[in-house]
Structure formats: C-alpha cells, structure tokens
C-alpha cells in the first residue's frame, strides 16, 4: 500500500466537532452567567428600593 489514506477531511470534521461542542458549552456558560448576574443586580436594586 502506498502511503496512508487521505482522510484529512474527516480529521478536520472530528476536531471541528470537538472544539465546536466545547465552544458551544463555554458560550452557554458565559451567557447564562451574564443573564444571571444581570438578574441579580436588578433584584438587588429592587430590594433596596423597597
């Protein structure tokens, strides 16, 4: 057999999936954190004004 099979496209797809899923999860963590922080601030303000 002459040389390894050309499977570069699958290699790219594989690492795309890995970093894609990682990226999506990190984005979800960050976005949830931001939303909650904003909520916390709003609620704290409301509490103070009561």
């Amino acid at each position, binding site marked *: 057999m002459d040389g390894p099979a*050309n*499977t570069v496209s*699958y290699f790219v797809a*594989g690492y795309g999936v*890995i970093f894609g899923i990682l990226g999506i999860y990190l984005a979800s963590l960050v976005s949830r954190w931001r939303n*909650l922080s904003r909520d*916390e601030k709003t609620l704290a303000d409301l*509490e103070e004004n009561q």
Partner: protein
Amino acid sequence: MGSRPKLLIVLDGVTVVMLLTATLLVFFYAPMERVMGAVQKVFYFHVAAGWVGMISFLVAAAAGVIHLIKKNIAWDRIGVAAIEIGLAFAMMNIITGSIWARPIWNTWWTWDPRLTTATIMVLIYFAYMMLRAGIEEPERRARFGAVYAIIGFLSVPLTFFSIRIWNTIHPVVIASGDPSATGAFDMTPAMAQVFLFSLVTFTVLYFDLLWHRVRLGILADRVEHLKLKLQS
C-alpha cells in the same frame, strides 16, 4: 458574587495552556498513521472525551449518594454540573467515534459494545435532565436527581457486559469486515505520549469546567433566593 477565586484563575490558565499544547502535539508531534492517515489523530481527543464522559457519571453518582446522606444542596449542584458536562463530552465521544468509523470501516455506525453503551449513557444523561425539568421544588429535584444518577450509573456497566457477551456469542459483522482487524493500530511511543497527555488535559479541563458550572449553580440559587424574598 465576586470574581473568581485565585485557585480557579490559576486552573483556568493551566487548562488553556494544556489544551493548546495538546492540540499542537496532536497536529504536529503525533506521527501520521501508516494506513488510516489523518483521521486516526481524532482518536486522541475522542478517547479522552469518552473517559471524561465516564468519570463524570461517576462524579454525579457519588455526589448523588452524598447528597442523599447529607442532604446538603451543594452536592446536588455538583451532580447536575457533572451530568451537564458529562453529556457534552459523551456526545463529543460518540460523534467523533462515528467520524472515525466512516472512512475506516465504511459505516457511520456499528453496534459494538462500547459505542452502543456510550449511546445508552447519553440517553440516561438526557433522561436525567428531563426528570429535573419536570420538578419545581429544588429539594425534591435534587433528591430525585440523586436517585436516578445512582440507578443510571449502576446500569451502564451491566449494559456494557450484556452487549459484550452478545458479541462474543454472535460476533458483529459489519460492512467491510471484522472491526478488530482494520482500525487497530500499534501505538508508537510518540503516540502514547500524546495519548496520555490528552487524557490528562481533558481531565484538567473537566474539573475546570465543573468548578465554573458549580459557581453558576451557586449564582442561580442566589438569584432564586432573591426572587422569593422579593415576592414575599
């Protein structure tokens, strides 16, 4: 809630460096496999992701047991964080496994024990999330989550063994032949190094993510608490 504790900042830094290093090692240091070519390199992170998927389940089950005994909500936060992150890595594992299988075995899917068990594990992860989604009270949600995590964790090895026995009595025949013949490869020392480093990197990454996710849980609980206080 303030900024990250010092240790977490350090952990974040270490994680990023290790992940970067591991990626570079895989891309440039690991040799190209003779037969399979580039796609074999997916193996390094594929197995690491599977490993994380499994230890995450163990963490969730252990946290569940401790929660049931101690009734401290902190353990539930760890449990749900472990399930969430474990789900992400388990899916990573299955999808990359499928991507690897396609050029090597000429099929997107095989019913071999590991892949099938991994899929069932993902289904259990999803079921856990759905169970929690259906319960309003945090205390009951935590209790039921713990119970299901324990039951789920116990069943996964049994599933694996059942399918394995099934395979030895009726070996799997797939499109281009016996999977143990093709698709196997000998690991050179360089490959072994990259493999081990990937495992360690992913483990560090896992605990880093876990810590962040638990902090998110603490923040969410605080917001919930504030909401209830304001309503009364």
